[in-house]
């Protein structure tokens, strides 16, 4: 019996070996390189990175933009997932197409479309002026708000789909049972519905947040060089400045944040899974 089980386990070897060599090993080598200097192991690159106010501002901006993007996407996604789980026929098709079709429009063109919309003479400004909300065009392109809106647009399907998957499988009878026992809508939501859907929220938020901290194309097209993010600093140090130690250090910082998000979210998911 144990021989057969071992044979099944062997099937994982090609895929895992591939990821170990072509993914984990290069990342470990990058981490090693960031603490290796001519004089041996040293954290001087990190000290230099964190001592610079500019880098701290970029780091905080990256985290803030990612958090706001995740929040905006969640506000849009959560009610939508519930509506989708109840929708039938042509309505369901409309929602599903809206989730998947935009993925066929590459992120480059999508971000560019948003940069057109946000221009001073762009569609949004013309609409605002036409409605009479503003007389002069509002400066939108190159602002953090524009970046958050554009990023939320790109990542929204990745927030909706995990929540939709959980909501669809949720036992509808539970909130109804709570209602029949006299629980009000707010009590039902916070004590029954929300805890049941939390695993989907955690999965979607972790995914959106980790994509938003490392996005590169979207900020390059919507905010440009004026407001750098960590990814833009990495690209600049490798592709333009040719400063590999600096690039490796920033990469290691970003990698650290990403690994933390992966570990923390899977821990949270397991805890939620164990509770329910």
């Amino acid at each position, binding site marked *: 019996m144990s021989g057969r089980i071992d044979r099944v386990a062997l099937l994982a070897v090609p*895929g895992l070996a591939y990821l170990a060599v072509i993914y984990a090993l290069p990342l470990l080598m990058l981490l090693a390189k960031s603490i290796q200097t001519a004089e041996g192991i040293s954290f001087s690159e990190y000290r230099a990175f964190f001592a610079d106010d500019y880098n701290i501002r970029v780091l905080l901006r990256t985290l803030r933009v990612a958090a706001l993007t995740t929040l905006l996407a969640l506000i849009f996604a959560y009610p939508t997932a519930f509506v989708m789980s109840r929708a039938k026929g042509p309505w369901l098709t409309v929602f599903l197409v809206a989730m998947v079709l935009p993925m*066929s429009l590459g992120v480059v*063109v999508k971000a*560019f*479309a948003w940069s057109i919309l946000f221009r001073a003479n762009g569609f949004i400004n013309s609409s605002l002026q036409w409605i009479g909300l503003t007389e002069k065009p509002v400066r939108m392109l190159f602002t953090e708000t524009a970046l958050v809106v554009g990023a939320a647009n790109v990542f*929204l399907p990745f927030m909706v789909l995990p929540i939709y998957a959980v909501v*669809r499988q949720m036992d509808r009878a539970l909130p109804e049972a709570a209602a029949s026992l006299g629980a009000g809508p*707010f009590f039902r939501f916070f004590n029954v519905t929300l805890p049941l859907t939390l695993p989907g929220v955690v999965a979607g938020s972790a995914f959106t947040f980790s994509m938003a901290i*490392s996005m590169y194309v979207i900020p390059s097209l919507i905010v440009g060089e004026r407001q750098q993010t960590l990814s833009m600093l990495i690209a600049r140090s490798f592709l333009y400045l040719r400063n590999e130690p600096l690039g490796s250090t920033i990469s290691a910082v970003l990698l650290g944040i990403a690994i933390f998000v*992966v570990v923390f979210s899977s821990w949270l998911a397991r805890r939620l899974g164990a509770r329910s």
Partner: protein
Amino acid sequence: MTQTDRIFRALSWIVALGCVAFLMLPIFITVAASFSASPVYTLPPPEWSLRWYVSLERRSGLWDAVVLSLNLAFVSTVISLVLGTLASIAVTRGNFRGREAIATFAVSPLMMPGLVVGVALLQFFREIGLRDAYVSLLLGHIVITLPFVMRTLLASMAAFDFSMIDAARTLGMSYPKAILRVLVPNLAPAYLTSGLFAFLASMDNYPISIFLTDARNKTLPIKMLQYLEEQPDPSLAAMSSGLILLAVVVLVFGARTVGLNRMIQG
């Protein structure tokens, strides 16, 4: 249903419809701009024309990039489907420690910063003396596509009844044949979903590819960004509209064969 429930339901529908409009907006902008007569992106277009579709014929650089990206997406997705099937069977059926950790590890590239993976691969390939840009890109793109495949296949195999495989074996099928003839057809929606998402992720990848390209091997997103910086005319919109049409065809095919909901949910 109470008054409050009704208000919540109405608000949810408003948000959901807003969501659809928000998601479709870039597609409308792109398609509208592709039929514009103006060489700059103005909306609504002053006059309609097909000139940017005609001009695509002369953009040979763009076509090379399309072919390279389709090639990379197809080959890396197929390899990932094979590796992913094997690994998912092992994680679902195996009885060994650390299966959770293996699943987390195999899906983790989805959440790693693309630029960092790209830099790490660049330095690694340089170290081992790999210079061929196509091979480097392909190896990198498998890292992009494999986690998409693993995520969907792991979820659907957890719900698959493996006694069907045992039954096929009792009837005299070999194990590989039973997998191909019984497991794969039963999980067709999962294969379609994971294949589609993996393919699109590879087609759209910029951050890993940018470090692995050379002058002759430029993938579509890289070429498009370069093109936008050099001459931002609507021929890109025309080309993207063509790709959207292609996606519509795939979605219609998927909806007809397995149903849209099963296709998207695996």
